[in-house]
């Protein structure tokens, strides 16, 4: 009941609707500054960095990362002052504005333990 009231309050003042149920909290991780454009771009980082930047390991966790730190690292990848194997390609392909937007987006993502899907025996 509280959830419903809160929802209509947000809608009525024109705020972006927060998903307030548990499933959405855990998996949509919606932030205020998110646009579909940034959602899509940020999600493509997920192949290496995990959903919403919650890496399962082997790559940095971006969820909750300090935004100015994110920007500094990406700019360093971009100008070559931080050496990398692949990140310089992504940093150079993005605009500075996109780097800033991604920094804000990831800073606002909740840091959670990423889920690893369990393996199965091939049944075929």
């Amino acid at each position: 009941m509280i959830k419903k009231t809160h929802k209509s309050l947000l809608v009525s003042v024109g705020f972006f609707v927060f998903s307030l149920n548990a499933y959405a909290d855990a998996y949509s991780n919606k932030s205020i500054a998110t646009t579909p454009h940034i959602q899509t771009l940020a999600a493509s980082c997920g192949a290496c960095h995990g959903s919403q930047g919650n890496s399962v390991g082997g790559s940095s966790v971006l969820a909750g990362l300090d935004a100015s730190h994110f920007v500094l690292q990406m700019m360093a990848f971009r100008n070559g002052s931080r050496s990398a194997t692949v990140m310089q390609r992504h940093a150079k392909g993005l605009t500075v504005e996109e780097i800033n937007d991604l920094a804000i987006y990831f800073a606002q993502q909740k840091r959670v333990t990423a889920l690893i899907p369990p393996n199965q025996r091939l049944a075929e």
Partner: protein
Amino acid sequence: MAIDRRDFLKIAASTALFSLPMLSKAATQAKGRVVVIGGGYAGATAAKYLRTWSNGGLDVIVVEPRSQFVSCPLSNLVLGGNKDINDLTFGYDLLKSNHGIQWVNDEVVAIDAASRVVKIKQGEITYDRLVIAPGIDFMFEQLPMLQSPEAQAVVPHAWKAGAQTVNLRKQLESMKDGGVFVMSIPKASYRCPPGPYERVCQVAFYFKNYKPHSKIIVLDANAEIISKKGLFTKAWAEMYAGMIDYRPNSSVVDVDVATKMVKTEFETVQANVLNVIPPQRSGKIAQIVGAANVDKRWCEVDFLTYESKVVPNVHIIGDAVSAALPKSAHMATSQARVCANAIVALMSDQAHDTSPVFANTCYSYVSDKMAMHVANVYRYDANKKMMVPAEGGGVSDKPSELEGNYAQAWAKNIWSDVLT
């Protein structure tokens, strides 16, 4: 007063709340039903994000005949003896339960696009919008002797991961030292441009360690190695010297399944283990619905929404899409998300993104531990009306164990994203 970037970020973050009115068109909830045909990288991603980004407002039904997800990426490592097929096999339970996706384990037999009905073996499902992620189908009319399941058991393609992969590995294990592995590569475009060349590396790694007198003949219909060419050429020469005989401009025109003899336009080659990767087109469902209008092979779509240019309310994503983009798993997931966001917008009367951007990273393993990448950001070009590579993209300087580790991280994270 001058504001530096740090301050700008702090201010932007704290005032984002008040800059909302521009973003707040999102107040309308997307409602309706989307059916997704195919539970691979593209389809599973589309289903999850349609649910997530509509806040559960959209009903999503996935129709998928297989009960398990088996990853094609990394499946070449099974051939090299560096992974077990079970390492690449997953169920769909977490995906279904975490996102409230309705799941139908069945096969599509027909689509009535005018009435918006999908006909499966068990019955019918109506839709408001349809997403088809059918992967690839093989053009066996060019090699009819490979059409039957029996023939494919003797001459596997192993280009759809699972039993085929295990079959090819078993054949390699049974081959005597000194034998010949022959692999044919179709003319581009096909699923996973670097895949065949990675396969050569993996089989060579296995041979080098266990059957060092064996040979690999690569019959490539293309004029040259079409992905990471310099890197593969060097890896073959340095790591597997003398083992790999690469023959470009060699299209397979005939196969004697019983004797494993393969004919190109110029020669006949005898194999002990024969792997023919047939020419490809978009998966059967895309053909059935009439969406495969590019050379009757691939599907032309609007790159802002992935809606078919031929069949309205039907969206095509993944390998089936006609694009100058590589047919890769990462690409499939990115297309799925652009599509999901566009469908959410379309079904809630909002404007969709008119300038999508996404990144693509693709790793190939040259041995058990060493890998190399090709990576690019892609952005929508309003003139060409398609996604084009942004600047800064390219390939590794050389393969490395460090990149091998990053490739593992890619796999684990993309499986986490697609399947949970």
